[in-house]
């Protein structure tokens, strides 16, 4: 069975529902929280996926965890997924929802990985440059990875520009070995 369809459909339904209610921004914030929690707390998923816990118990858990942080539409969505025994797809649906949101509002997610912390000026310069070339709003996340040695990696959606020193060294090693 092609399972990827399940999460896509739930995400689409939630997205359209949120637009109809005019609560897109709130729902997005809620779903971001759900996505973050479910990826960062493996125990939550383990509990939701367990075949021996009852649906009512799972619903209660969702209520207790998210109840005070998310709107009632989002909670209803999680309830529906649990009721339909699709609890395994909550994370994937959340991811797809966020994807739909970004597409809808023309936001591109950009990831900047550097070997060392960068200055605020440099960051704004990069944002401006990417924004100008992409012609759209961007959502920047920053990471520091010492293994790059130097330079940076810039990822826009599923495109990447790897200008790190470690990549250059890797290329150098490859081409030197090829010549032998």
């Amino acid at each position: 069975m092609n399972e990827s369809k399940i999460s896509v459909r739930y995400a689409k339904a939630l997205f359209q529902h949120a637009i109809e209610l005019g609560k897109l921004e709130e729902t997005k914030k809620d779903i971001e929280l759900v996505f973050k929690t479910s990826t960062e707390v493996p125990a939550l998923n383990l509990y939701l996926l367990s075949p021996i816990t009852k649906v009512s118990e799972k619903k209660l858990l969702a209520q207790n965890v998210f109840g005070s942080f998310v709107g009632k539409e989002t909670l209803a969505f999680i309830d529906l997924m649990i009721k339909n025994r699709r609890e395994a797809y909550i994370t994937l649906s959340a991811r797809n929802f966020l994807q739909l949101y970004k597409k809808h509002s023309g936001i591109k997610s950009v990831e900047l990985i550097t070997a060392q912390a960068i200055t605020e000026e440099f960051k704004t310069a990069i944002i401006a440059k990417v924004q100008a070339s992409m012609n759209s709003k961007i959502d920047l996340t920053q990471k520091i990875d010492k293994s790059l040695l130097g330079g940076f990696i810039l990822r826009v959606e599923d495109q990447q520009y790897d200008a790190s020193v470690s990549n250059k060294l890797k290329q150098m090693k490859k081409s030197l070995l090829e010549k032998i």
Partner: protein
Amino acid sequence: MADIKPAEVSEILKQQLAGLKTVTELEEVGYVLQVGDGIARIYGLSNVQSNEMIEFSNGMKAIVLNLEEDNVGAVLLGPTDQIKEGDIVKRTKRIASIMVGEQLLGRVVNTLGDPIDGKGPLTGELFEMPLERKAPGVLFRQPVNEPLQTGVKAIDAMIPIGRGQRELIIGDRQTGKTAIAIDTIINQKEFYDKGETVYCVYVAIGQKGSTVANIAKTLEQYGAMAYTTIVCATASDPAALQFYAPFAGCAIGEYFRDTGRPALIVYDDLSKQAVSYREVSLLLKRPPGREAYPGDVFYLHSRLLERAAKVIKNDAVVQNMNDVPPSIKHKLKGGGSLTALPIIETKEGDVSAYIPTNVISITDGQIFLESSLFNAGIRPAINVGISVSRVGGNAQIKSMKKVAGTLKIDQAQFRELEAFSKFGSDLDAATMSVLNKGRRNVEILKQGQFSPVTVEDQVAVIYIGTKGLIQDVPVEKVKEFESEYLDYLKIKHKDVLTRLGKGELADDMTQILETVAKDLSSKYKK
């Protein structure tokens, strides 16, 4: 060594480094959502193509098999535990392919074309050949008309194989399937020595490493490695490498086929390939069908075997052949062929299982091996009654066709009468003569392992068998008589043998064969 100056070495290194260009390009990437059992699900890579090779950050490769709505399913070509969730994957924009060249001869390589025989990397010119490639179209083929000599008397006489044919070797375990294939490869030595090499590829799928090492050693011993490549995916390799191994071997065979040379490929065996394909398919959550094989397991084998072909001799037509990889476009030549000998292992002789019926229907005939015959000492244990070759008849040399024309029917009749004679009733003279001739023919068709027989010898021996010229020789002495007869012909009538090998069968020749047989057989008379 004393002449090398450190300054010179650093100068060379400096030059090399100066020549290096590190280009930073925009790459398409994704990251691993989930990984396990040799399968990775990847998020991103929105433009990736089916069957494309992708690369993980640690250099491991994978092949994309499933394109789904929000993720991509890929099979890993290396150990699963080296890939972790969140790893970055890059597109290579290359369809899965291997590098092929003349240097592959005499080597043992894996599915990716990397040598695993410890003889160092491949050097010289290599050409990129895709693993998955469409078979040549109807326009670029011609009927099978040249024989592929296996050196096995029973096969060359009754189930002849032509160049470009696909002949299945099927049977239970321990019935000598691999032995027939290896004997066929060894028999090509004769043509290699004459300079008309038939290039051989042996694909070992899911076998023990020790078995493959043994086969390589045997081929080496008989001088057959000089024109043979072994593609090996052992039982411990990932399933993806196992089910792609025949495609890799086929790509090597196609290189020889498309450059106008005859090639022979042995797939040992396709039932194991189907099993590894089933494993991957089930892990990718494709719906299972009969015996839990996926629906496209027929297509898996049909598209592989369809690539065996006899290419038309006309060079001008061949230039326009479909799906030719750009790397060998300038080397295209007509008249080449790729003969396939797929092997299928049955369980308890059950040919009506899913995979055996599929492959039987795809191929141009089958050689059926039986354990009862094997245990009765009839080796090769070919069941002549149900073995057929649908196209090979046109490829037999004339002398063999004339001599062996009635052999198959004679033997069928013999087996029928033999069954009756077991009741022990009195038999008339005609029946007795059929039985006597049949028993001797069975002896003639027996043959040891690794001892292929040349066509001329085959024709000479089968002639005396079918003509019933050795009725006086006791059954248990037939083997002895055969070698004596052939030795005599080789010493006294070399010319007759040579002419037989060329396809001639004139009256003066048959006369010599008959007199020699009569003279020698009188010695054995009691």
